[in-house]
């Protein structure tokens, strides 16, 4: 019983991280209809920048945890957002009118570039960050206990905050209206005076910012990372996006939670060696049974 509860807690935090990354996939897919393969590597870049920001802040003698956290979040979000913008500018904008296959191949190329660029400049070794926030809440359940570390609570809090702010921006602000209009009909939106190129850039930046939040949180919690972490977590976040219905923002969050919970339960109760196999098989299964996902609209092909 306590194992199940503990895995549910772990799954909840894992799922909120998947949800944050899935937002990048789902928004980009919604607006230009392509799978941004480089998104997982944007997450990987943000993990490195987190460690670099931490190292810099410690170098300047800052000790208090809240300032370090805010400083790291700010630096990472800013730099990763810039990566998102530049990736779109270099690899995707020149291909706006090309075939879908060209864009996909260009995205794969971008993903390889990012991985190798980080590997060449930072070395191929695994890197790590020190544990900054320790301590946990413990609840006694039957004979055992369930433990929620403060770091996991922080992950939940910041993910919910990030998703809340994003939902507000998309639903209530002018920028959000422009995004939604471009998503519905790009040509019409540009006729009505919306600078669609700018909106697409903004969406890439938003996706990168969300991935950066996930990158900071996971890196602070887990500690270790290398230049290859973006690959697996990228596929899983994409699975989450498809599960929730690609193109749908609440779907990405819901899909992330479901995937995180089911994966944690699978790892805790059946086998942790095959948890990646489980997630990938889940992706194939969803595509067979319900390709439009839980909250997505069925795809209608237009001539």
């Amino acid at each position: 019983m306590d194992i199940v509860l503990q895995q549910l807690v772990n799954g909840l935090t894992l799922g909120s991280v998947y949800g944050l990354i899935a937002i990048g996939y789902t928004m980009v897919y919604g607006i230009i209809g392509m799978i941004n393969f480089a998104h997982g590597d944007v997450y990987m870049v943000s993990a490195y920048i987190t460690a670099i920001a931490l190292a810099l802040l410690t170098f300047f003698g800052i000790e208090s945890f809240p300032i370090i956290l805010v400083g790291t979040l700010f630096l990472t979000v800013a730099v990763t957002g810039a990566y998102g913008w530049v990736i779109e500018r270099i690899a995707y904008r020149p291909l706006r009118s090309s075939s879908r296959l060209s864009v996909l191949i260009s995205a794969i190329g971008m993903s390889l570039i990012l991985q190798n660029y980080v590997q060449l400049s930072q070395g191929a070794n695994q890197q790590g960050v020190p544990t900054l926030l320790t301590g946990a809440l413990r609840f006694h359940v039957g004979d055992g206990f369930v433990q929620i570390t403060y770091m996991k609570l922080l992950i939940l809090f910041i993910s919910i905050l990030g998703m809340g702010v994003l939902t507000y921006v998309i639903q209530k602000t002018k920028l959000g209206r422009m995004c939604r209009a471009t998503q519905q009909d790009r040509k019409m939106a540009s006729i009505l005076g919306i600078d669609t190129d700018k909106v697409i850039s903004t969406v890439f930046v938003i996706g990168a910012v969300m991935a950066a939040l996930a990158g900071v949180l996971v890196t602070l919690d887990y500690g270790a990372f290398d230049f290859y972490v973006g690959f697996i977590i990228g596929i899983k976040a994409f699975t989450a996006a498809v599960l929730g219905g690609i193109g749908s923002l609440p779907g990405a969050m819901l899909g992330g939670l479901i995937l995180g919970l089911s994966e944690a339960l699978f790892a805790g109760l059946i086998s942790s060696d095959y948890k990646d196999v489980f997630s990938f098989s889940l992706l194939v299964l969803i595509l067979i049974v319900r390709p439009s996902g839980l909250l997505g609209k069925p795809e209608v092909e237009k001539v």
Partner: protein
Amino acid sequence: MSQAVGINFKKSSIDALIAGFMALILFGPIVGVVLDGYGFNAEFGRVAWMVGIVVVGRFIMSSFFQTEKGKALAFRYANNNEGVEVLPPGHKSKMVWIIPLVIVIGLVLPFIASKYILTVVILGLIYVLLGLGLNIVVGLAGLLDLGFVGFYAIGAYGLALGYENLGLGFWSMLPIAAIMAAVAGAILGFPVLRMHGDYLAIVTLGFGEIIRLILTNWASFTHGPNGVSAPLPTLFGLEFKRRSSDGQTFHEFFNLPYDSAYKYMFVYLILFVVVWAVLFIKHRLVKMPIGRAWEALREDEIACRSLGLNHVLVKLSAFMLGASTGGLAGVFFASYQGFVNPSSFTFFESALILAIVVLGGMGSTLGVVIAAFCLTVLPEVLREFAEYRVLMFGILMVVMMIWKPRGIVRVTRTGFAARKGVVK
């Protein structure tokens, strides 16, 4: 135009400054601050170099596109709508002599080349086979397959495990591996191919990883990361070992001194024949209705479906054919290495094969053959640049897609003419 257009250097300078600022944000942390434990080493010299290159490059580019020549180039790029070049009916290529020449050179090569060169060429030919297989899927049918290495692994492990558990040799596994890979392709492809093409990319990516994870984790069957040994091909039962456990060996039968190069010569010759067979089959298939259907479906799926093509079966045939070619290549790889382990089947291999197809030109056979040799033989020659290999592949893919999405070698096709006596 009556007046010469001057270059607005102020605009170029602003462009260059903005680019330099962005480069500073991007390169500053990652390149300039190298993590070392929980501390860091500052490498600001590298950042200065890279930012400098970006600023100068952007300035030159911005200025160039303001000149007449640059504008013409930009215009040509914007209207870059090249497709397949259609030659007049009855066109005979002037390059016909090249095929017999290549065959003769290929047959003579093993007897004159050193063992090292032969092993490099075998590796090149294996990648030609892989490139041809993926070219059917990506180039002709327009389906992006990122887990091609999975089929390659099925072929390689099929030989190794089939030999260990069932005693099957190279020759019996060659067709079985092709069929196994094709069946795996059908099981994977059938559900996904009904849907939008982009999903296939991510599902195949997941499939390639699943295969690798299973090979690594199922230690009782696949021996995990330690790998399995694979047998060499035999010539009518004659083995290419120094001593045979049962029966005769090749050198004893022909009264030759033992030389380890014989086995490579033999693998090379079989591979050479198989590559030509695949080339021939592909060449014929492209002209058959199924090949036309692949290309038509790639260009416009909705039009094809409304004309009554069964898009799932057409795509599936391309996917299975590509997969079986990958399986064949896997058998050769296992046999040539004598040993397989999961680290040969990472996503990097899939990316390499994709780079071969992209560089060679989608659908172009000649281009793929040339690209396969370039991308496998060049790293052997330029070993000191080996770590920049993946970066080069990535840049290559992005630049090729922007600059020449159909590859360097253009695809040509002979047009049709009505036969004599047919009423027009």
